[in-house]
């Protein structure tokens, strides 16, 4: 059973309403699924229209519905036919007596809708022509009863329908033009307008499309009925091209060909002239809309017929004097078409438009839009006229500049458009001046008169929004005023003018009085009214954001910098000007000196005014100042800023009351000092996408870094191949070894040496001691005082010696209770750019040159650790370091270094690529060792790099310190004190020391030390000169005394060893080199040595000559000593060594060899 689907059920009027609503809002699905769509729906609607029980209103709605949705509904030609049949039925039905006018209007709507639907389905197959012919015939039947009384409006509508068909299918009616003309002539009611317009449309297509060349317009050659679609349509349709059917406004191109054809057919030309002269009598009888349509039709025809423009002028000149905007516009349309013939009338028209815009409160329902339109028309017109004839500038400008002063009660929209006109006048006047200049052969005779009036134009014009100065910044007046400033400023250089891409070079803004005037106005009013600040800022931003007028914005900032900043009062109000200052600081072309000075002064004021109530304000203002400083650092070369900014920041660090501000200032200062220009800017710019717009307050975005990305651990492995930490001074002993003393190491923390212990009883737990009360401390003190008393009987010499030692040890800090003595090992950190880039993968833009192309590392942290007893080694921080350039780049960067180096001098070269690192050790025991170095740093791309660097070796010489001199020893007595100390220690370290069981209290009184000495000798077979040089080079600080005249003579002249005790060995027994005891003690060694010497040969003995002696006292932290007594002979030197830390002797031997023999 395949029966066609049953037709949808008829709908009630309510359902129709819903359906229409749904269709209008695009809610189709609920209807289409039940087949209420397409042709069936059309059929349903048409049958509903014929139903008697439906109201006419609903029927009208149905018609409109069909019309508006015809594209989706009328998918089959049969529907069109059905529509036409229904229309015929309706038209022919008599009007019910009770609702004559209603049924007329229903019929009219039906005609309109049907025509509309037919037009929309405009591509006809040949078969469909019959349907179209049917419609046209029906319409013609209605139309063909001129002057008939009551249905005149229906006839008018039918004419409209025919006209619309003619417009959609040009030349459709051209063969019956004669009939239509006849009807036109006989119609006398108001409906005549529609007949006339229909005729005009037919004539229009005849002339423009020229498809029916053989038809006479005067004599009807074809009968009106039956109507046939002209043959040309069939021909046309064969081409399958109906795109010509569009009635566009592209008549012009057709007109030219049409007019040439017309000339050839002379008879036709005369006919057309007759028709057109008939038509031209009509405008005064037409409605406004009718006139507009009429002109649209007849103007091309008049053009083609080459009618005199004066004819048209007479007919239409009245239009411009009416208050109907549409008619005025129609007139302007005609004027634009016939610019040449209307030449010379532009001033009259301009004046008319000026007057029109004045119809204050009288125009259409007080609606400002028509006034705005007339100003726009005027602007458009002037541009058009001037575009054709430049000489008319002056007259326009003169007239309009006077007539377009905004009036007080003009709406602001109108005021602002009038100000546009004023700006345009200023351009015209200015260009006129320019023209004059060129005309005078380049001599700069500026038309003073006109340019002064330009300024006056601006000043007078702006008066109407003068409230902009003091009204809040969001007021409409300010918006209008700044819009006007903008127009006046950019007026002379339009964006489309590509030749003048860089106007700044061509013309200095200060040349033009208008610029000066604007600048003056802005500065003056901003000084007075801080409310303008946001406006100024967005104004400048607007200019800066423009590819063409950026220079104007910069110029404005420069002028503000020069003329505005010096005039500012330095008080709290200054804060409201910060947005402007921010913009100034962000501009590279403006020198920041003045601004920095201002900010510094403001900082001073803030500090001075700071009080309990101003905490928040100080913080706020201080942060803002720093914000501007930051902007400066981002946008300016550091070199130009450095002096002022560093001063400002340093001042803030020191004195600003707010902690956070101080902190930030410190950070900035550090960055400014350490990081070179481009890197600094990049760093500060992180997180900021728009360089022009800086953050409003402080540097929060600086801390707002991207989430850290860790460097690939694989890459970190070879980190030491490109990041190097090296000692500044290389070790003397290259091959280092470390004496491993496991016993000592084990109890490293407790007591490294048995001689070194607390003076308390060992059983007493430390914790208790720490928590002990003050009584305990008192007892401690007592104990100390007791200890200081000599316990045993000694001779005076010994007691003197012990006294010296006591004093000495009392000044040695006990590292277990106090910060210990520190050893500093200077190192240098550097890294290799090329390898770094390769490894980290940071890509530096290839176009950047010099230093900017080098990678950098930021916020580097070096952490140290060691297995040697060096205590806790503090980590070291390096804010910024630049990579070492590849060799060939060196010269390159050198040439460019001038503008980037912060400390701009020659020696900076190294500093930029090398960071000094100081490793601080707090040795528990003086012994060489190895320090492991761990680095953590950030690359340019904020990648975190970390890894192990090569270790740093620590030699015994690193441990060498000068003896600690107690504070109470006067400076001039220091050499003697040192010598005495030397002697005492020398004595104490002797094997038969009388101090062997003596203990010495360390500083703080908690720890005690005992001396257990060891001695050794070393013969150095080096000539005395090289020995002296070596001593001077490496041991000079530790020399406490030089004895022996020859030696003194040599050493004293060198001035390297100073402030020591110089003693002739003969005269002073104390300084006599071989101390009797020592000689005795060292006897066996000495003898052995002598034996060796003897074996070598007597000549050595003979030639050996004593020159003198160096006494060298070296303090080894934490509390040991190394003593040298160097007995210098001319070819060899005997070094006697004593120490209270015997393990060090192992290293000393090597050291001495490295020092003197190599």
């Amino acid at each position: 059973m395949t029966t066609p689907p049953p037709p949808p059920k008829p709908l009630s009027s309510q359902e129709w309403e819903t359906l229409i609503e749904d269709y209008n809002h695009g809610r189709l699905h609920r209807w289409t699924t039940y087949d209420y769509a397409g042709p069936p729906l059309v059929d349903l609607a048409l049958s509903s229209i014929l139903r008697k029980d439906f109201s006419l209103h609903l029927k009208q709605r149905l018609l409109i519905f069909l019309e508006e949705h015809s594209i989706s509904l009328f998918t089959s030609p049969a529907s069109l036919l059905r529509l036409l049949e229904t229309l015929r039925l309706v038209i022919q039905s008599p009007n019910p007596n009770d609702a004559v006018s209603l049924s007329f209007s229903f019929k009219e709507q039906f005609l309109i809708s049907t025509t509309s639907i037919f037009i929309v389905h405009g591509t006809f197959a040949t078969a469909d022509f019959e349907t179209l012919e049917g419609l046209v015939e029906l319409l013609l039947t209605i139309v063909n009863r001129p002057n008939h009384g009551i249905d005149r409006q229906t006839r008018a509508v039918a004419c409209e329908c025919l006209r619309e068909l003619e417009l959609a299918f040009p030349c459709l009616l051209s063969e019956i033009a004669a009939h239509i003309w006849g009807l036109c002539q006989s119609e006398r009611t108001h409906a005549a307008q529609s007949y006339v317009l229909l005729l005009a449309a037919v004539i229009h297509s005849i002339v423009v499309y020229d498809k029916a060349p053989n038809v006479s317009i005067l004599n009807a050659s074809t009968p009106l009925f039956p109507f046939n679609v002209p043959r040309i349509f069939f021909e046309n349709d064969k081409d399958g091209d109906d795109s010509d059917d569009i009635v566009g406004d592209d008549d012009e191109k057709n007109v030219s060909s049409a007019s040439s054809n017309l000339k050839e057919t002379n008879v036709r030309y005369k006919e057309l002239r007759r028709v057109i002269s008939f038509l031209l009598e009509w405008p005064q009888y037409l409605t406004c809309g009718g006139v507009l349509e009429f002109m649209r039709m007849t103007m091309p025809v008049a053009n083609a017929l080459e009618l005199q423009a004066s004819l048209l002028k007479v007919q239409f000149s009245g239009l411009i004097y009416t208050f109907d905007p549409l008619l005025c516009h129609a007139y302007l349309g005609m004027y634009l078409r016939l610019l040449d013939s209307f030449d010379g009338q532009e001033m009259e028209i301009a004046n008319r438009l000026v007057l029109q815009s004045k119809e204050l409160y009288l125009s259409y329902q007080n609606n400002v839009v028509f006034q705005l339109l007339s100003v726009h028309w005027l602007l458009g017109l002037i541009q058009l006229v001037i575009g054709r004839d430049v000489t008319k500038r002056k007259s326009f400008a003169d007239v309009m500049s006077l007539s377009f002063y905004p009036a007080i009660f003009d709406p602001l929209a109108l005021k602002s458009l009038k100000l546009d006109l004023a700006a345009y006048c200023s351009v015209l006047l200015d260009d006129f001046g320019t023209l004059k200049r060129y005309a005078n052969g380049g001599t700069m005779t500026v038309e003073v008169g006109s340019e002064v009036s330009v300024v006056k134009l601006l000043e007078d014009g702006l008066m109407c929004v003068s409230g902009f100065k003091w009204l809040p910044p969001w007021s409409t007046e300010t918006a209008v005023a700044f819009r006007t400033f903008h127009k006046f400023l950019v007026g002379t250089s339009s964006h489309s003018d590509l030749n003048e891409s860089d106007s700044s070079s061509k013309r200095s803004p200060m040349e033009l009085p208008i610029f000066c005037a604007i600048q003056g106005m802005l500065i003056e009013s901003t000084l007075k009214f801080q409310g303008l600040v946001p406006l100024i800022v967005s104004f400048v931003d607007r200019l800066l954001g423009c590819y063409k007028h950026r220079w104007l914005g910069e110029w404005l900032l420069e002028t503000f910098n020069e003329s505005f900043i010096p005039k500012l009062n330095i008080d709290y109000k200054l804060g409201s000007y910060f947005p402007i200052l921010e913009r100034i600081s962000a501009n590279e072309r403006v020198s920041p000196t003045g601004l920095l000075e201002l900010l510094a002064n403001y900082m001073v004021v803030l500090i001075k005014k700071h009080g309990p109530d101003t905490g928040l304000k100080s913080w706020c203002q201080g942060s803002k100042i720093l914000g501007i400083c930051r902007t400066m650092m981002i946008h300016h070369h550091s070199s130009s800023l450095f002096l002022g900014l560093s001063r400002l920041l340093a001042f803030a660090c020191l004195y600003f009351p707010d902690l956070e501000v101080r902190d930030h200032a410190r950070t900035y200062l550090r960055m400014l000092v350490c990081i070179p220009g481009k890197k600094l800017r990049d760093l500060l710019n992180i997180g900021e996408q728009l360089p022009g717009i800086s953050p409003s307050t402080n540097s929060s975005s600086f801390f707002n870094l991207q989430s850290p990305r860790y460097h690939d651990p694989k890459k970190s492995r070879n980190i030491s191949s490109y990041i190097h930490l090296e000692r500044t001074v290389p070790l003397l002993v290259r091959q280092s070894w470390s004496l491993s003393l496991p016993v000592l190491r084990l109890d490293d923390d407790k007591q490294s040496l048995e001689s070194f212990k607390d003076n308390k009883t060992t059983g007493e737990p430390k914790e208790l001691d720490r928590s002990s009360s003050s009584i305990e401390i008192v007892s401690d003190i007592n104990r100390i005082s007791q200890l200081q008393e000599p316990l045993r009987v000694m001779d005076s010499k010994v007691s003197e010696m012990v006294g010296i030692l006591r004093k000495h040890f009392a000044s040695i800090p006990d590292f277990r209770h106090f910060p210990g003595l520190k050893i500093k090992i200077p190192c240098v950190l550097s890294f290799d750019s090329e390898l770094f880039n390769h490894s980290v993968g940071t890509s530096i833009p290839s176009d950047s040159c010099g230093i900017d192309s080098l990678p950098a590392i930021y916020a580097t942290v070096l952490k140290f650790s060691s297995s040697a007893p060096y205590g806790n080694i503090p980590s070291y921080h390096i804010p910024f370091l630049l990579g070492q350039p590849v060799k060939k780049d060196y010269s390159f960067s050198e040439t460019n270094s001038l503008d980037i180096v912060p400390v701009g001098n020659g020696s900076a070269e190294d500093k930029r690529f090398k960071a000094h690192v100081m490793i601080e050790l707090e040795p528990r025991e003086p012994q060489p060792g190895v320090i492991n170095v761990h680095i953590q740093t950030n690359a340019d791309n904020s990648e975190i790099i970390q890894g192990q660097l090569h270790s740093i070796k620590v030699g015994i010489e690193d441990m060498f310190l000068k003896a600690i001199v107690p504070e109470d020893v006067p400076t001039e007595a220091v050499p003697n004190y040192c010598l005495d100390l030397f002697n005492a220690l020398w004595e104490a370290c002797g094997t038969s020391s009388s101090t062997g069981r003596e203990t010495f209290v360390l500083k703080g009184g908690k720890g005690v030390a005992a001396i257990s000495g060891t001695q050794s000798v070393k013969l150095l077979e080096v000539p005395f000169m090289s020995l002296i040089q070596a001593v001077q080079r490496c041991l000079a600080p530790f020399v406490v005394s030089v004895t022996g005249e020859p030696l003194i003579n040599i050493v004293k002249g060198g001035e390297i060893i100073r402030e020591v005790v110089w003693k002739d060995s003969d005269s002073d027994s104390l300084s006599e080199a071989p101390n009797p005891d020592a000689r005795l003690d060292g006897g066996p060694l000495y003898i052995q040595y002598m034996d060796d010497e003897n074996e070598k040969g007597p000549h050595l003995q003979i030639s050996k000559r004593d020159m003198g002696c160096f006494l060298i006292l070296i303090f080894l932290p934490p509390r040991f000593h190394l003593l040298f007594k160097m007995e210098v002979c001319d070819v060899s030197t005997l070094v006697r060594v004593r120490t209270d830390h015997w393990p060090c002797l192992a290293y000393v031997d090597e050291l001495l060899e490295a020092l003197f023999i190599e």
Partner: protein
Amino acid sequence: MPLRSSRFPVVERRWRLACDKESQSAGATDSLKVVPYLPTDSELAAAFIDRKKREGSVRGFGIRTSHSVKGSDSWVDDPITRHIISLNIDKEEQGESHFIWPVILHVKGPFYLLALPLVEPHHLKTYARMCNRSDCGNTIGEDENLSSLLLDLPSITGAFMVVHTIGDIVTGDITEPEVVASASPSVGGLLDSLTGSIGISGRAKPVATPIAASATSSTSVSGTLASDAPKIGSRSLDKDALQSFISSAMPFGTPMDLSYSNISAMKMNGFSSVDVPSADSKQPAWKPYLYRGKQRILFTIHETVHVAMYDRDEIPDSITASGQVNCRAELEGLPDVSFPLTGLGSAHVELLSFHPCAQVPEHGGDKHAVTFSPPLGNFLLMRYQVSDGIRPPVKGFYQLSMVSENEGAFLFKLRLMEGYKTPLSLEFCTVTMLFPRRMVVSCDGTPSIGTVFSTERSVEWRIITSGRGVSGKSIEATFSGTLKFVPWQTKKPPSSGSVFGSIDDEDSDFETDSPNNIVNVEDFLAEKMSKDLQAVDLEEPFCWQAYSYAKVSFKMVGSTLSGMSIDPKSVSIFPAVKAPVELSAQVTSGEYILWNTLGKCPVAATRKA
């Protein structure tokens, strides 16, 4: 949701064809492709609401502000973009965005009327380029500018006419120019004369119920009319009235006749066999019916005076009068009427515009004569404006001085009708002190003449009340006293509503001034109050609330201020007919402002030829 929309398939078809043609000729190289897309009602409404959000208000900023975004109307930086708007229809499903321009926006009562006139695709492209420029804004000499575009597009002008007419119909605001006859104070409009002449008694008042909107389009494309107003009283009858107006006024989308009175007369009355067209002359389309009955001509000259009175040496007072001549010619047939304009030599009268039925007088010299063929009913014959040489009918000064933050002393010294003689008489005169931003607690003081009424926001001094008209003498009136206000409370201006919104006031710096810094209490108060000021719309002349002033309203009858007059004897009718000519004249106050002499006041430079 739109309440009513009309589409014109014929116009839509033209648009589609134009787009096809454009895309054929433009080829693939053109980056901007115009798609013949027409939105549905709901899409249009959604886009409209979207634009409202983007542009801050229904009309938008109009001027480029810091809130403007590229691609929006205010980016074009022209106040007219508050009336000619663009819409972006985003079709999310298809990922397409359609740019619709020019949408004509007219706000009338609670209704938003939108119309979309037909333009060429290249116009649309030009505008799209204009609102997407990356530079700092249009300069005037630019190649592509709005002015040239508007000059090139009468369809936009037409669309404005259409939406204005429809707006009036929708709100029931159809009024005819007032014509005053000596017998009855005011004469009715066209329908009265029509019904009077053909014997139909009475007529329904123009539909005054708020009709659910309707829509339209003009010289062109589918118009759609959307309204945010609540759907009240959308009776189908009213909708149909609107629909039938649209069908008759612009059957195929092109407005042919926008005269509502003519169209509704034809709808209501139709034509009968009695309506015989004139035998000897053509009947104009704008006069479908001819008058039959007793013949007469009535003229009413109506002047409105706008005054800004400063009473300061450095600022001259400004006074302009705009006048119009309304006419009602009850004449049979289709006669021509002409008369000379007298009294134009004395004052600086600028003739502004005329009714389309008038033939424009030859200008040059003082011989202004107007000839016109009158339409039926009341009509506005001509407009003029006088900006010089008028004596203000109310002259004097107003001073208000704040003695403390909430207390002020004021003084008026006025002279009324100085230098004016009979027949000009003053019907009423009221001076109002307006305090839109402060509440008045009390007003003490007795005027030398008249009575005082005070409300919360104003104090009204009725110097002369209607019924006690004054003529032939000048009156001196003084009024001094004190005012007490409710203490001023700072309130944050609402962020929405104003055109420009309020710029985020993140800076607390504005509040750094303590009262001590400002010695003057008035300055302090002004400073304080100005922070709360809201931006006015661009359609206002200035921020009224920022100033202190008193407003004068009055009505004078009997003559004009400018001297503009029509001599009834010199009115000639052709073909000659005996018909009495009546003339009446009245002057009313427009913006008649006495600025507080002690306060700030807006000024405008005056033209000096």
